[in-house]
């Protein structure tokens, strides 16, 4: 893991212990690993995302940090203190659950006050902190309502306020936006990020939505089958995926099979394309050439570009962009994303069956073994 030297916004000052350190954490359910040998350092104040498909172990990892699931092996340190054996109520960590898990028999204000009451905070202080927190999540004036009468977005805010009001060291969020519709989700993403910056609390955010992880996080750990495949800034994992899984999970990626030889990839379908020198990739090894749809050009090529011919099979217009599916050889199709910047009519663009040339800069493609 390259967490300490990652160029994250909230990198830990030298010497201070990480907000969370997971050391060789594993969870075994009846012989199969939900989480396997997970080691991570998360810096204080960092917005850290665990990203992966369902069943990749991201929620199990979060539940172990929260104390709801007991690890089979490994340790969890919060600010340097070993909390592996502590129950949830003894950890200075709060959770926003996927279902929000609000207390329906209590008012919104009493929901938010729940944690402070458990801690024995004085009445006047509780009232003040609850009021401030409700204002912050834009629920001022709704304190007397029951959660059942609120909208999905409002319930989500109550869950957030209920956790944040305790000023935890770390806030765990388990797909908190998954139940919201797309528009509201986009708005909450921005808001959540804003709140995190204001309160300066370390957020650990679990999601399967790569857009969400890219938009909000300082760093992202992409998980697959109980392991971290790659951990880095959003730009790192998107632009420089180190594995086929990360390349295909982070957005769409074209993976074209071929063989690497002398700074070229000889595609199985024929043409040899320059990719530049790739140290570490052995000559003659079979590889996948990975190239993002938005990095492929359809015209105005520059010198030094890798060029290849294909046949347009499908044109998908979606407002600001158009996606072309271009067949390079039988069974090898790449998708190409083009901005519709200069175009108000599609008629002058290619349609199915036409033969075209596409190209990309060699440094924009990745050679994955």
């Amino acid at each position, binding site marked *: 893991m390259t967490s300490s030297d990652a160029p994250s916004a909230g990198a830990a000052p030298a010497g201070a212990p990480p907000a969370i350190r997971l050391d060789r954490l594993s969870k075994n359910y009846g012989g199969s690993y939900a989480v396997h040998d997970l080691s991570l350092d998360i810096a204080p104040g960092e917005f850290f995302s665990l990203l992966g498909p369902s069943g990749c172990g991201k929620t199990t990892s979060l539940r172990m940090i929260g*104390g709801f699931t007991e690890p089979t092996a490994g340790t969890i340190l919060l600010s340097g203190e070993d909390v592996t054996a502590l129950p949830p109520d003894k950890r200075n960590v709060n959770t926003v659950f996927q279902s929000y898990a609000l207390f329906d028999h209590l008012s919104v204000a009493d929901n938010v006050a729940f944690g402070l009451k458990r801690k024995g905070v004085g009445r006047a202080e509780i009232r003040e902190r609850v009021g401030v927190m409700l204002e912050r999540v834009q629920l001022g004036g709704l304190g007397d309502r029951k959660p059942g009468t609120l909208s999905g977005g409002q319930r989500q805010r109550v869950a957030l306020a*209920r956790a944040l009001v305790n000023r935890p060291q770390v806030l765990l969020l388990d797909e908190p936006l998954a139940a919201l519709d797309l528009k509201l989700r986009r708005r909450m993403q921005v808001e959540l990020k804003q709140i995190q910056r204001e309160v300066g609390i370390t957020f650990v955010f679990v999601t399967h939505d790569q857009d969400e992880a890219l938009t909000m996080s300082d760093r992202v750990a992409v998980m697959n089958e109980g392991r971290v495949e790659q951990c880095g800034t959003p730009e790192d994992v998107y632009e420089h995926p180190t594995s086929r899984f990360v390349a295909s999970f982070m957005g769409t990626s074209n993976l074209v099979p071929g063989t690497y030889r002398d700074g070229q990839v000889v595609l199985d379908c024929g043409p040899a394309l320059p990719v530049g020198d790739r140290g570490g990739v052995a000559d003659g090894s079979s590889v996948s050439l990975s190239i993002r749809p938005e990095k492929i050009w359809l015209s105005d090529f520059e010198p030094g570009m890798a060029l290849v011919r294909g046949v347009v099979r499908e044109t998908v217009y979606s407002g600001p962009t158009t996606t072309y599916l271009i067949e390079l050889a039988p069974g090898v199709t790449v998708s190409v994303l083009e901005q519709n910047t200069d175009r108000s009519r599609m008629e002058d663009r290619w349609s199915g069956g036409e033969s075209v040339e596409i190209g990309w800069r060699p440094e924009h493609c990745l050679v994955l073994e």
Partner: protein
Amino acid sequence: MTLRTPHRRHRRGTDRRPRVALTVTAVFFLLLYLPIAVVVLFSFNGQKSLTVFKGFSLRWYSAFFHDNVLIESLGMSLRVSLVAMAGSVVLGVALALGLVRCRTRLGSLAGLIMLVPLITPEIVTGVAAMLLFKGMDITLSSGTVMLAEITFSISYVTVILRSRIAALNPEVEEAAMDLGATRWQALRLVTLPALLPSILASAVLVFALVFDDFVLAYFTTGVDPQPLSVRIYSAIRFGVQPTINAVGTLMLAGSVGLIGLALAIPRLFGRRGGLDLLSGK
């Protein structure tokens, strides 16, 4: 317009009132409620006759409220019902929590055994309880009735509560613990309030069941004072007094009121499904 006529004829064909079904239903309700209606009617009879109705009067109600033996029995029945209600609700809720949360083979076996009292003929339960008490040299009294009724009623509470507990979101209790509540506090502050409508509904149901119960009470009661149902049974062996009609009517009114309350409780809390068993949902 040409299409409309055949269409309507077709609809009339399937929507025709099912006369046979209506008749059967009417006969069913007649047979079910006629005897009860007779009891209610004759409780207001001005005469002592059980066959001829002559004039409206409340004299049998008055006679009941002046009959010390019957009033004592009523008090005993209320005491037994209240104790059985409290005991079986506490134990039944605990059992339901245990059955839902403990997902072992032993747990599911316990879940099946729990249902046995519901299908055992009550007379078997009654005789068995009596033999047990006798065998242990325990004198039959109001205490033994209460014990037997609690045992008998736990299943009802557990059956009602079990489905509600299974439907609870486990994250809610976790959220309470996440916010600093211990396991016990989470149960008390979050889970039990969420179950309150079902708990109240099952309590009312148990009260009504126990108050009306005769068989179990008959086998496990001591000499004096006996629960009302046993007392009535003893009374009619020496000839039916019209007072019994008045008692029956009062018990009927009480039971109907309680069942109505049990059904209304979940609605009062603005939630559905308090008594899934009774409402058939």
